[in-house]
């Protein structure tokens, strides 16, 4: 007994002892795979495994339904204790909201209080948000980017440009979508929309354009270098502009911001909101378009 234990201990500390039984049996299976007679056995084993898998998948479904129901009950129970919907006396209807709507126009110069809120009062969040997009672009690039020398595989170059219906519809729609996107982008401080909405509409428009006319033609107009330059310039501009406004926002620095809200309602108003909207819009648009291009062809062009 003692000997057995000590030998077990020795095995363990030398790293030869394995605690997982399946681990030990696996290599044998690989070596005997050539022999005809044992193939059947493996098949039987596989059938058993499949049955097990079916059982576990049923178990998963069962568990997931129960889990879903419990989670839903708990969360809906929480809703029971929440403030009333569409009531004007909820905790969220507080002085912050009144300030944003009541004073926002005069302080930021933006008629659309949502734009004024996300690009002036809470601009730090939006800065982080556009960097989330940048991070995701980099991550997708590093996952799917292929080297430039490698030719694009033929089976990955499918287009819709042979389909007359898609093509015609898209040819009519694309300019409208792009003009709408630009309108939404540039009027972000006056009407619904702004950087995120306008940018994603623009990006969707460019994706449609690339789909209808083929990526080769699209790449001639929207070059990868341009995408990179626009992304880098917009993000740097965002960083610098916001650094300026954060720096001047604190009195002890002794510098006051020279940016004025302007006349609310004019197209050139709202201080930094219009340029920031444009920068955010460009970032979002480039991100959406480059997601499409990378997924389609493995590179930006």
């Amino acid at each position, binding site marked *: 007994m003692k000997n057995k234990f000590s030998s077990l201990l020795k095995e363990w500390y030398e790293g030869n002892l394995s605690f997982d039984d399946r681990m030990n049996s696996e290599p044998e299976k690989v070596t005997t795979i050539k022999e005809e007679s044992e193939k059947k056995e493996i098949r039987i084993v596989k059938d058993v495994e499949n049955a097990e898998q079916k059982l576990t998948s049923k178990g998963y479904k069962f568990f997931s339904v129960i889990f879903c129901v419990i989670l839903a009950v708990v969360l809906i129970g929480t809703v029971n204790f929440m*403030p009333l919907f569409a009531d004007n006396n909820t905790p969220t209807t507080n002085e912050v909201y009144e300030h944003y709507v009541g004073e926002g126009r005069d302080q930021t110069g933006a008629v659309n209080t949502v734009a004024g809120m996300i690009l002036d*009062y809470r601009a730090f*969040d939006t800065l982080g948000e556009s*960097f989330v997009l940048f991070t995701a672009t980099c991550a997708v690039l590093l996952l799917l980017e292929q080297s430039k020398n490698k030719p694009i595989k033929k089976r990955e170059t499918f287009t819709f440009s042979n389909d007359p219906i898609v093509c015609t519809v898209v040819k009519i729609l694309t300019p409208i979508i792009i003009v709408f996107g630009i309108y939404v982008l540039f009027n972000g401080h006056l009407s619904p929309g702004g950087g995120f909405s306008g940018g994603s509409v623009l990006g969707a428009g460019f994706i449609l354009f690339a789909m209808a006319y083929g990526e080769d033609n699209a790449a001639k107009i929207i070059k990868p270098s341009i995408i990179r330059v626009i992304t880098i310039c917009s993000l740097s501009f965002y960083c610098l502009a916001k650094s300026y406004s954060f720096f001047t926002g604190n009195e002890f620095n002794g510098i006051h911001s020279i940016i004025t809200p302007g006349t609310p309602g004019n197209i050139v108003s709202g201080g930094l909101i219009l340029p920031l909207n444009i920068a955010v819009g460009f970032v979002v648009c480039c991100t959406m378009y480059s997601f499409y291009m990378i997924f389609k062809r493995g590179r930006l062009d």
Partner: protein
Amino acid sequence: MDFIMNLPFVTIVLSLFSAVICFAMKDKKARFVSYFLLITSGIMSALVLLYNLNSETGYFVYRMGHYDAPIGNEISAGLLEPAFLLLFEVVMFLSLAGGSQHIMQDVKAEKHKYFCIMVNLTHAALAALCYTNDIFTGYVFIEICTIASCSLLMLTKRTRALVAATRYMIFSLIGSSLVLVGIILLYSITGHLLFPQLFSTIQGLWTTGEYTFPLTIALGLIVSGLAIKSGMFPFHFWMPDTYGTATPAASGILSGVISKAYIFLLLKIIFRVIGYEVFLDSKIQYVLFIFGICGMIVGSVSAIKTNNIRFMIAYSSAAQIGYIYMGLGLGTKGAIIAALFQVVAHSLTKPMLFLSASGLSDTVGGRHDFASIRSSAHNNKIAAISYSAGALSMVGIPIFAGFIPKLLFSTSAFGHGIQTYLMLIALAISTILNVLYFLRTLINIYSPAKVELERKTITFKNSVAFSVIVLIMSAVNIAVGLHSQPIISVFEKGLELFINIR
């Protein structure tokens, strides 16, 4: 000297900006930018820490914009924030510099640039998580941190790392969606997003008894989300995969910095948003306590079972994170300071262990199992020395950093009824298990070889950066272990600030 109050925001924006710059640069310059960024922001955090130590209040709030708290956005810096950011920067710099050779081997040549970008973005997210005074900003930077850290893992050449990255990503996504729904519940019952206003509203709600149930649910969701992301016991399954397959620098950063940043954010939310009394009242601490103790035991047992040295270190991470949650769960100030010190000790030690383990396995051609790693100490003496230092520190031998938190835990355990016994027994069992598996590796790497393998000798001249960094890390570890008192006093003051100043 008021200029120093700008430095936290400069740190955040500078690291975001340098990520953009790196995107336009070539590899070598990008690497230079990363190192430069880490050094400068380390200096800035140290300056902020010194400024706060010498100022009267020890605390300042910086407006991010032109408007005051409930309207605008702000960041704040007390003592703990710059101290932990400094720790994170030091650890990141050391593991990046020490693992630079491995980065060259493990990451494709054309993708080195992305490694630098991701390091910069991770640093930006860490700085923002440390300094933020707004809960939604915290969420946004959690997302950046998730993507950037996952990318650090994905950059490793082997496809195995992609599987690990998928698993890590899914766990992180579960965690962040829980955090998001918790934040939104908090917003809808308080109407605020900034920490001071949230705190006062929550105190009011808790005393009047209004919205108690949603508040408890929101607190539970936030705590469980951050616990999943930092790898608390029932959710630690992503850890061995993640830490074991990434390149050593990345595993150092992931284990030593990122999970600790989530823990720090959790601590900040507990103290500055929920409030200490409400947290103790809500009984969530007992759940943390139980899961922390389970994590200590289960992590150690898994570490004993495995035959792969990197998986073993990763499982030991799960155990060490159990210590931290046990401290948070006990809820006394002494235990929380012990948990904070455990964060420091662990994030100083784990990257060192990962680096030196990879140094050891390099001598046998990159194999990680115990049978082949046997007797590798004779071929790489420096890595063996630092591995021994790290292992001893993890076990909790005096003069090393890992000893102090165990001492603090056991002194703070007394006087809590059944919790005292649980905690002391758990500490004892976990220490014995720690000794078992770390001693096993130590004996293994020094004993004579049994298997014939192609061996490569790594000397100081072969790998200057690695050796110097690894030695520096051991020295820092011993220094922290010997001079723990100043750090503890800073933590005590910082914790007082966390509790008192709004």
